[in-house]
């Protein structure tokens, strides 16, 4: 079986500053894979490049074997079934929760299908159902993360990109978010997550990459990566 997403030799820079320097990685259908890295390692850059929001200097990104993502614009990439949970949520704060979710399925022409999907999200996240008419900006951090995830799921994606979903959340909510990622993955949706929280993310992931200064330095099954000395030193040393 070929990889769902295949990235080869990706190089992205901001002006003359390289952010990602020759990264190759793949994700199989139905897999939950995590990219670990510190601030500035290039994690968000990889996600944004997959989404078509940044143009790389070199490299290829193929989806489902046949689609060359570098030739597509962001809305076309979304249409292929790739959805994004951005770093720091990035909700439309001046819109209601309901409108945020509707925007998640902007290009789905069938209103009934959209409403059905939104209904499912409200069933899964009852807190959001209660707050459907509130402005997204008025919710708590954890609730906002739920909106960000629900917004990405409304379009029934095949691949979910999660950019530091634990960032800025209370520890108890962080655990919920990782459980949720696992649950989404078990529904058959491939998840590519970038994280700094190695301990929690390695618990739910199947496999992991370790990114340092724009390069992949380790790759392998999650349990194996968790045992690496470099990972333990950088990410697991002493913190909870």
């Amino acid at each position, binding site marked *: 079986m070929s990889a769902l997403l295949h990235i080869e030799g990706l190089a992205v820079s901001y002006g003359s500053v390289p952010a990602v320097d020759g990264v190759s990685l793949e994700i199989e259908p139905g897999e939950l894979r995590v990219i670990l890295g510190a601030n500035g390692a290039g994690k968000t850059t990889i996600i*944004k490049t997959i*989404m*078509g*929001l940044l143009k790389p200097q070199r490299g290829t990104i193929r989806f489902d074997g046949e689609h060359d993502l570098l030739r597509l*614009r*962001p*809305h076309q*990439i*979304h*249409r292929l079934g790739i*959805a*994004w949970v*951005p770093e720091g949520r*990035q909700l*439309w*704060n*001046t*819109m209601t929760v309901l*409108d945020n979710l*509707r*925007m*998640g*399925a*902007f*290009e789905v022409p069938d209103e009934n299908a959209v409403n059905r999907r939104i209904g499912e999200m409200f069933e899964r996240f009852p807190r959001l159902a209660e707050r459907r008419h509130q402005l997204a900006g008025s919710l708590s951090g954890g609730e906002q993360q739920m909106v960000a995830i629900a*917004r990405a799921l409304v*379009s029934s994606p095949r691949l979910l990109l999660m950019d530091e979903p634990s960032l800025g959340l209370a520890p108890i909510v962080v655990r919920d978010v990782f459980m949720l990622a696992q649950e989404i993955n078990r529904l058959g949706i491939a998840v590519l997550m970038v994280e700094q929280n190695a301990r929690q993310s390695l618990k739910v992931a199947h496999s992991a990459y370790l990114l340092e200064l724009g390069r992949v330095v380790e790759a392998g099954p999650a349990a194996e990566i968790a045992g690496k000395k470099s990972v333990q030193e950088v990410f697991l040393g002493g913190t909870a």
Partner: protein
Amino acid sequence: MDLFLQQLSNGLVIGSTYAVVAVGFALAFTVLRVIQFAHPDVFMIGMFSGMMAACIVPGGGLAVALIGGAVGSTAIGAVIERMVVAPLRGRDVLTTLIATLGVSIILQNGMAAIIGPDPIPYPRLLPTQFYEIGPVLLTLRQMFCLGLCAVLLSLASFYVRGTHIGRATRAIAERPDVAAAFGVDVSRVCRITFWLASTMAGLAAVAVGTLYGSASAFVGLLYGLKAFVCMLVAGNRYFEAVIAVALALGILEALVTGYVSSSLRDAVAFFVLIGVLYLRPDGLFGSYTT
């Protein structure tokens, strides 16, 4: 008291026309992040294309002029979008500002080269008729102008708040990247929004030409500056705030004309601008950050 009510009504009429132009500015700025300095000249083109339509179509009345105005302004707006704004999208705000300023100068002086630098009489598309509403006296032209602008503003509000594409314009205004990543074809929505703003300006321009009975190649200068001031004073976050400020400015100008002096009228907008920006640099109702 009668003078007050009269000037209030006159101000409302003028304010509604400022509102239509200001909303066009605001749509272009919030959705495309472009200061469309040629927007008032799109308005001016609409005024003249409406006039031309009324003159060349035999028996052409107000309806023909409105269609002509809408077609002319939309066409010129579409050309500006295609040739100037779209190629420069994503660049610095100053780049498009200077480019559209260039377009503005070309349109103004191009039109002046054709019809001359002085105002010319506008066709009498509506009869001279007065209506007394209590103590207030309004002309048919004023009432038509106010009514048309009210309809245009309601439609614009419906577009932004009530339609699928309108929701996308708000999404783009707040977070263009996220909107694109969630399936919004940003270029397409920008294009449609730009066209709509131009159409609105052209329709209002015909009503304004009829109201004043004259048209000038440079009508956009002061009109545009005042509409621009309305957007800055209101901030670009709430569409309705821009309308409210435009109406308030029209009323304020009419009151200054009535009670102080008409020569001070045009200075009012800029006094207000300086005062508001001094106290609230983001505008009275807040702005999206760029």
